[in-house]
C-alpha cells in the first residue's frame, strides 16, 4: 500500500467518516439540535471516537434561514460542548467549515476534527431570504431572488451556445435518476420538468427546498488509517471568490472555480468522480467547463444538489459523498466542489484520493 500523492502540505489529512440526514421538505417537529444530533452520533460511531476525543469542531449554518440570531449555538448541545471544547463556526456552507478545520489540523493544533453543517429552510421563504446576502446598496433593495439570478446565468449560457433548454432538462433528469440510489435524497427518480419558474429555468432546473444535516470527521496521518479502512486523503483544497457585482462578471465562466482547482492540483492527474455543488442545472454546465471534466468522469452519482439542497450543508455533502465513494473503493481520485452566493460567486474545490493497493 502506498500513501497519498505528495501534497506539499504540512500534514496528510483525510476524510475518515461521513453521515447525513434524510433531506426533507419540512422538519417542524425537530429543533436544530434535535435534527443535527443523530447525524453527529452516526458520524462519530463510524470512527469509534467519542465527542470529547475530537480535537476541533467546526460548523456551518446561517441564522437567516431560521430567522434567529446565534441559532448555531443551539446545536452545540449536541456535540457535548461542556466541559469547553475547541470550536468554531462559519456563517456559510459547511464546506468552508471543513476548510477551517483542515487548516486547524495543518497547524498541528488538532489531529481530528468534527465538521457539521445544517440548514432548516422550511421556516421561511428561502428565495426571499437569500436576497439578504446580496449587495445592500445596488441589489438587495430590488429583491432579486435566487432563482432569478440563476436564470440570468442560464440565459447567458444559452445565448453563448453553451447549452439549451433540452440540455438543461437532461442534466436535471440524470441527477434525479442517479438519486434513485441515494436513500437520503429529497427528489428521486422521474420528476416532471415542470413550468418556468423564472424563464429559462423550469421547476426541474431548480433545487428542492428542504431541511437537512451533514457531518464529516477529519483525521491526520496514521490516525486516519486507524479510524478508516481506506481514508479519503485531501490532496488539495482551495477556495476563491469573484467580484460581487454580477454585471462585472462573465456569468458563463467561473474563473474562481478554475483557480481553486489549479491550486488544489486537480489538473495534475485525471479524476474518476466529480461531486459538483450546482443547485441549478445550468451551473453544472459552467462547472464542468471550469473543472475540465471529460465524458469519462462520473458526475454527481449522488444526484447532487438538484436532488437535495439543504442550504449550508449541500456543499459539505459533496465532499462527503466524494469521500464515501473512496471509502468504499468506488473511486480512486475524486473532485468535490462547493459554492456559496449568487451565480457561483464563491467556490471551493477539494481533491480526494484513496491509497492505491
Amino acid at each position, binding site marked *: 500500500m502506498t500513501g497519498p500523492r505528495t501534497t506539499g502540505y504540512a500534514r496528510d489529512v483525510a476524510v475518515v467518516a461521513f453521515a447525513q440526514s434524510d433531506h426533507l421538505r419540512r422538519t417542524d417537529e425537530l429543533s436544530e439540535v*434535535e435534527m443535527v444530533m443523530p447525524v453527529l*452520533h452516526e458520524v462519530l460511531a463510524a470512527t469509534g471516537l467519542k465527542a470529547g476525543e475530537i480535537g476541533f469542531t467546526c460548523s456551518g449554518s446561517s441564522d437567516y434561514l*431560521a430567522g434567529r440570531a446565534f441559532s448555531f449555538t443551539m446545536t452545540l448541545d449536541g456535540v457535548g*460542548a461542556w466541559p469547553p471544547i475547541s470550536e468554531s463556526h462559519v456563517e456559510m456552507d459547511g464546506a468552508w467549515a471543513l476548510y477551517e478545520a483542515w487548516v486547524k489540523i495543518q497547524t498541528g493544533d488538532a489531529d481530528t476534527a468534527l465538521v457539521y453543517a445544517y440548514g432548516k429552510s422550511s*421556516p421561511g421563504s428561502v428565495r426571499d431570504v437569500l436576497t439578504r446576502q446580496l449587495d445592500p446598496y445596488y441589489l438587495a433593495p430590488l429583491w432579486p431572488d435566487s432563482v432569478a439570478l440563476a436564470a440570468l*446565468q442560464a440565459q447567458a449560457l444559452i445565448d453563448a451556445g453553451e447549452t439549451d433548454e433540452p440540455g438543461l432538462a437532461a442534466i436535471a433528469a440524470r441527477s434525479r435518476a442517479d438519486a434513485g440510489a441515494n436513500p437520503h435524497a429529497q427528489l428521486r427518480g422521474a420528476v416532471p420538468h415542470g413550468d418556468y419558474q423564472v*424563464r429559462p429555468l423550469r421547476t426541474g432546473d431548480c433545487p428542492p427546498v428542504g431541511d437537512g444535516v451533514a457531518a464529516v470527521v477529519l483525521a491526520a496521518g496514521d490516525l486516519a488509517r486507524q479510524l478508516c479502512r481506506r481514508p479519503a486523503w485531501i490532496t488539495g483544497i482551495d477556495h476563491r471568490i469573484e467580484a460581487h457585482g454580477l454585471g462585472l462578471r462573465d456569468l458563463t465562466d467561473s474563473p474562481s472555480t478554475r483557480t481553486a482547482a489549479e491550486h488544489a492540483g486537480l489538473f495534475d492527474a485525471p479524476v474518476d468522480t466529480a461531486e459538483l455543488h450546482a443547485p441549478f442545472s445550468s451551473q453544472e454546465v459552467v462547472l464542468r467547463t471550469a473543472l475540465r471534466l471529460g465524458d469519462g468522469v462520473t458526475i454527481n452519482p449522488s444526484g447532487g444538489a438538484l436532488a437535495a439542497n439543504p442550504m449550508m450543508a449541500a456543499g459539505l455533502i459533496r465532499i462527503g459523498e466524494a469521500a464515501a465513494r473512496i471509502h468504499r473503493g468506488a473511486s480512486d481520485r475524486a473532485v468535490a466542489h462547493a459554492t456559496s452566493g449568487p451565480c457561483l460567486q464563491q467556490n471551493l474545490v477539494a481533491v480526494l484520493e484513496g491509497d492505491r493497493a
Partner: protein
Amino acid sequence: MTAASPPEVLRAPLVVEFPFTRSLGPVQSAFLTGLREGVVLGVQASDGRVVVPPVEYDPVTSEEIRDLVEVATTGTVTTWAWNDRPRPNQPLDTPFAWALVRLDGADTALLHALDAPGPDAVRTGMRVRIRWAAERTGAITDIACFEPCDATTAPQSLPAPHDGIFREAVTGIVAEARLDYVYSPGRAQTGYINALSERRTVGERCPSCHKVYVPPRGACPTCGVATTDRVEVGPAGTVTTFCIVNIKAANLDIEVPYVYAHIALDGAGLALHGRIGGIPYDQVRMGLRVEPVWTEGGRYPDHYRPTGEPDAEYDAYKELI
C-alpha cells in the same frame, strides 16, 4: 417520569424586520445622488473600463478608484430572465424581465427590472432606457425599471468626466427588510410550552448523566446525547443567586428596584431565571425558598414569591449556582 409523548407541532409567526442604516462612501454617494438628479455615474477602473454601477475598489487591482464619469440612460441588455410571478418587494408587480443592462458608455452591466409585454418582446442585445421613479430619494429604486427603446445608437459624447458634486449629497441609505417565518420550537420545547399551559414545569433527564434540564432543549450539552425522559419539577425552588435591577426597562411595567434571580426548581439540574416578588428587594437572599405566581391567563409564571419555608442549606444548591 413519563416517556416523551408524540410530537404535537406548535407553530407561531416569526417576523424579522431590520432597517439597517448604511453610510455611503464618496463613489456610492455620488452614484445614488446622481440617480436622484437623473444622472447615471460610473467609475473608471485602472484598465480603462467604465464600471456601472460604480465600485470603490478596482475589481482587478483592488486599488481605490474615484474617477467618476457620466454614462447614458440608454443601454443594451446583456442577459435577461422572464419573471412571470413577481415576488413581494420586487420593482414591478406585473410580469417583467430581470435584465443585466450595459448602459451606453459603460463596460459592465447593472441589474434591474425590464418592463416588457412578454418574454417574446425581450432578447439579449435589445435596446432599453431607464424609466425614472416618480419620486426619487437617492437609491437604486430611483430607477423604476428599464423599458424598451427605439434609439439604436449610443450617444457619442459619453462617457464624460463628472465631478460627482451635487447639492445635498445623499450620504446614507436605510435598507429596510422584512422576512416572515413560521417558527416551530421542536419536540422538547413543545413539551415544555404545552406543560406550562397547564401550570406545570417539565424538564428532560439525560439518560447518561441523569441531570434534569429545565427548560429542555432536547440534548445534554455535557454528554451530547438526546434527553428523552420527561420529568416534572418544582413547583417550588431555591434562589441560587440574584441581582437587583435599578433601571426601568422600556415597555416593561415593573417598578424598580426589583430582584431578578436564578431559581433551581426542586428536582431540576440547573437554574432558570425569574423575577422575585412579594418580598422587599433588599431581603432577597441566596437559599430563599420560592414558588411561582401565575396571573390570570398567563402562559408562564409572572414571578416567584417566598414559600415561607426555612432557607435551603448552601450545600443543597451550591452545585447549581
